[in-house]
């Protein structure tokens, strides 16, 4: 067991896999002198390949190598660079197996730095897991801890399908206990991070931590919150989500991504369709608003769910729909607060 950062844990997963499987190699911009400089001597420039700034080229090359028996890892850099290679990822990586009737297997992992809250403005800041969840054939992992980063990445590398690994940049330097041994975390298995009885928060990435902090604050208000980290967006562990909401009767989904057709919408719709009879309150989404990420920190800091915002929004919901609240719809609809569960105002202070 070592106490290491998320970034170190993720790299450990890749290095261990490179040692045990000669088909694994890494491609990316500047990786020989930057992220992998310390293992160049061990693996050499053939297996740790610097690429030109050429996302179509080297993402596609990763696909071609995977189709012919290799197991490439692409260090894609900022998640927004993924859009430069959109055709390769969506039309080739995701569809080849299906379109070619099962002949193809694209065992490819693409790691992406999901940068935001860094005043990098819209070209370097996005949270696109929802966008790519709309593409059948891609798996999507979004680890929230160093332990999960290593375990999920190992599963991703052995999965046999194209997997996008979205690394929340606000977590890269966070630390935690990580076993030195080989272990995997199955894709599609959510984790209950905190048990509770009154309300379920479903979330992922950095907002797992924020939600746990909020849950602690809510405990002080007498509200028992269950926090569920989905860990992978595709496959989505609907069973664990539904089981939790069936027990608590209330659902809040927290996500730093935009609202429209996003991860939060999918979770909300799943619960509305399949656990409606268990709901004691309207479903609430706490997300970023549907705007590009602005440069000014004064504007950007308004966008994302924080422990305080999650606490305030859940508390407000619970006051209307909690154990002792009146539950008639008239009260809710006449309150002038129908903006609460929808509309971007809900994620603002």
């Amino acid at each position: 067991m070592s106490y290491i950062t998320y970034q170190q844990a993720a790299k450990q997963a890749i290095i261990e896999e490179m040692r045990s499987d000669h088909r694994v190699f890494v491609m990316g911009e500047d990786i020989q002198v930057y992220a992998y400089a310390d293992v160049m001597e061990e693996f050499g420039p053939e297996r740790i390949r610097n690429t030109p700034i050429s996302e179509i080229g080297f993402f596609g090359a990763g696909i071609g190598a995977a189709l012919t028996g290799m197991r490439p890892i692409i260090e894609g850099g900022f998640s927004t660079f993924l859009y430069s290679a959109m055709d390769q990822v969506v039309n080739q990586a995701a569809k080849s197996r299906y379109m070619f009737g099962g002949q193809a297997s694209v065992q490819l992992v693409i790691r992406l730095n999901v940068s935001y809250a860094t005043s990098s403005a819209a070209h370097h800041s996005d949270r696109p897991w929802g966008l790519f969840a709309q593409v059948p054939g891609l798996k999507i992992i979004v680890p929230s801890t160093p332990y999960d980063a290593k375990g999920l990445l190992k599963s991703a590398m052995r999965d046999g399908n194209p997997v996008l690994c979205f690394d929340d940049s606000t977590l890269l330097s966070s630390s935690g206990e990580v076993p030195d041994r080989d272990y995997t975390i199955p894709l599609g298995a959510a984790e209950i991070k905190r048990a509770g009885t009154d309300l379920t928060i479903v979330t992922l990435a950095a907002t797992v931590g924020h939600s746990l902090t909020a849950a602690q604050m809510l405990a002080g208000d007498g509200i028992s919150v269950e926090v569920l980290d989905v860990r992978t967006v595709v496959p989505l562990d609907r069973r664990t989500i539904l089981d939790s909401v069936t027990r608590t009767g209330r659902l809040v989904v927290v996500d730093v991504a935009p609202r429209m057709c996003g991860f939060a919408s999918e979770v909300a719709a799943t619960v509305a369709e399949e656990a409606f009879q268990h709901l004691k309150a309207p479903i609430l989404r706490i997300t970023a608003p549907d705007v590009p990420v602005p440069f000014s920190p004064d504007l950007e800091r308004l966008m994302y769910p924080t422990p305080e915002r999650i606490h305030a929004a859940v508390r407000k919901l619970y006051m209307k729909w909690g154990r002792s609240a009146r539950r008639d719809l008239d009260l809710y609809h006449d309150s002038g607060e129908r903006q609460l569960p929808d509309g971007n105002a809900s994620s603002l202070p």
Partner: protein
Amino acid sequence: MHAPPRREFADMATRVTGAEEMIPSRAKLCEMFRRMLRVRAFEESASKLIAEAKLPGVLHNCIGQEATVVGACMALRDDDYMTGNHRSHGHPIAKGVSLAPLMAELFGKSTGVCRGKGGSMHLAAFAAGSLGESGIVGSLMPVAVGAGLSARLRDTDQVCLCFFGDGAANCGPFHESLNLAAIWKLPVVFLCENNGYALYTPQAQSTSVAHIAQRASAYGIPGAILDGQDVLAVYSGVMAAVLRAREGGGPSLVESKTYRYCEHYEAGGPANPPIYRSEHEIAAWRARDPIRLFAAHLQSSAAIGEREIEAITSEVLAEVDEAVAFAEQSAAPNPSALFEDVFT
């Protein structure tokens, strides 16, 4: 006007003198002729079937381009890779894939080479090294680079042949793929089937150079321009590039000047193509029909006699009829197939 190639184009091919593979054996000549006929007969049959609304979707036929498609593939080994494009049928046929599962794929049947999931534009036969065709222009060029990279990392001497059209030469993946293959010196042969038109737009209107192969110099790799109607010129030109790649010499850009007689695509119902090329131009290219040219060459060089040509022709026609019958008699995909093969 997209002009028929001048004779000297063929001589511009990089040649590896003395290599045994450069001179096709008699058996190989027969096989070339057979595969060219297969491509044409398969597509003429498919063309008829779609006009009768017996095939779903649309077809992009390559009739007229058979010498390019077959000459290039015959320069490959069975374990070499190949990627293609939307004008797709010729590539796997030329790589040696049997006709029945290809025809069944055009019908969308369960016995299709892609189990009815890909259709005409997305044929693939991995066992034969065909890594797929693509409906997106230029999209498989980087994938071909990856197949070359894989061969190098696995320390094999396999080569990847990457078919693309003149239209693809103007899109981003072309540039990124040639640059990447060049800096990594990968065993990839980029083969441009230049039929003069990107859909209905003539090359002169869309392309900054007269010959796509001129662009090779921008990447520091060899370029060659071939007479795409002469199967032996294509074979020897591509073979030179393949041998170079196999020996670690890196990628080449080979341009084969050719022509499609048919329209950009064919679908059921009356054809109503825009007017974009002259009857005179089509006639000039038909006058150098690749199959007729090759048949004449085979007879004049006494490699294959008329009787043998007739025998091959009737065998191929029977093969196509059998493929159609196989496809028609095959079952539609089971509804459960809808959900199969999204993931491993």
